[in-house]
């Protein structure tokens, strides 16, 4: 059975390692914070200027001076730090953040990502996404395998204007976990419980490597 959004977040959370600083994008990526494995210490960075981001505030304790990059009201954990946007993107460009989780509209089998603009539609802007994908060494994309029309979002080449070149390392969808090997394409690592390899093959438009038995995800 295909995963729901929380399932995708939960699977991505298994990629967290002790001592990592992590930047979570808007949408499914934000949910990853709810599934940090036991015994793992990570800290969340939000590019508008906080390290040590905590959960949403209790009702009535919202602070307009304390938001995340999605403009949501948040809290700061003990040991948090606030900083300006230049320092924030400084630490991103200098690769001090070990993991970046982003949503995407399209990903290509060489790791290009498109997630900021649909021609003909009102453009909202790239925000910090272009800085993040240009610098992060470890980018996981969290997205649906297909778009609302049923077309694959895992392509041989992005059709939409790209956000960054050859940067995505891993994709987690409601159907599968895939690595990206720029030489070989999407490498199928795991499938969602009960989802067949055939379904993944059918819904992946880019080059797809299926080697041997593909295990089910453990959630």
């Amino acid at each position, binding site marked *: 059975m295909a995963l729901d959004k929380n399932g995708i977040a939960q699977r991505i959370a298994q990629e967290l390692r002790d001592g990592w600083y992590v930047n979570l994008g808007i949408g499914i990526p934000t949910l990853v914070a709810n599934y940090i494995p036991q015994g793992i210490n990570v800290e969340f960075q*939000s*590019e*508008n*200027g*906080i390290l040590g981001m905590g*959960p*949403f*505030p*209790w*009702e*009535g*304790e*919202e*602070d*307009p*001076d*304390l*938001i*995340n990059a*999605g*403009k*949501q*009201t*948040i809290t*700061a954990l003990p040991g948090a730090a*606030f*900083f*300006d*946007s*230049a320092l*924030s*993107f400084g630490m*991103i*460009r200098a690769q001090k953040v070990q993991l970046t989780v982003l949503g995407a509209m399209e990903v290509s089998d060489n790791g*290009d990502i498109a997630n900021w*603009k649909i021609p003909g539609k*009102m*453009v*909202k*802007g*790239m*925000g*910090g*996404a*272009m*800085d993040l994908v*240009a*610098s992060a060494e470890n980018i996981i994309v969290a997205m649906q395998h297909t778009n609302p029309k049923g077309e694959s979002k895992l392509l041989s080449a992005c059709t939409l*204007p*790209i*956000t*960054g*070149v050859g940067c995505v390392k891993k994709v987690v969808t409601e159907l599968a976990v895939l690595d990206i090997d720029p030489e070989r394409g999407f490498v199928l690592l795991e499938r969602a419980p009960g989802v067949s390899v055939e379904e993944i093959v059918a819904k992946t438009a880019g080059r797809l490597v299926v080697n041997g038995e593909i295990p089910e995800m453990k959630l």
Partner: protein
Amino acid sequence: MIDKRVANADVAVTGLEDGMTVLFGGFGLSGIPENAIAAVRKRGTRNLTCVSNNAGVDGFGLGLLLETRQVKKMISSYVGENAEFERLMLSGELEVELIPQGTLAERCRAAGAGIPAFYTPAGYGTEVAEGKEVRVFNGKPHLLEHAFDASFAFVKAWKADPAGNLVFRGTARNFNPLMAMAGKITVAEVEEIVPLGSLDPNHIHVPGIFVHRLFQGEHYEKRIENRTVRPRP
């Protein structure tokens, strides 16, 4: 002590003329110079090029200057959630230049640090790279980006002393310190002006040398754009 205080927001925007480029601090609706925006609206200055990470919302923040058609061009990284903005942009009444958020921040910082240009990897291989010099460092392509050249900067801090030393609170800091550094004339508005000597000199976010005019805002709405809470257990 060099006293940076001016009487009010109207005095603080003196000299702002049609066609100028202006930096506005804030991220979303957090840390925006509410009182300076109101004074610019009152002044009626037109054809402004506004550099701000976001463009406000309908009826608040920079949305107030879009409503009155005072903005010729917005330079931002993200402009979602603003119907008036969308209408003006689609009708061609408003020019928009979108640039990556980190590049926006660094171009402000560069202006305030006397660095005319720098290289960043952000945007390489994308539309943002069009017309820009590409150079490879450490095997990785980078774009040449330039410091902003802005006549005014409007920023909002939490506290200041009369010398213009600024202190920010929480994530309302965001672009404000960088834009404060970058303005030819920097106007800082604050929630409170505290007596000289009451700010710890170790904890000044923006030294007063970068601030030309300082005033205490009359009122701060500090609207929350996206209220998210946990229900109390």
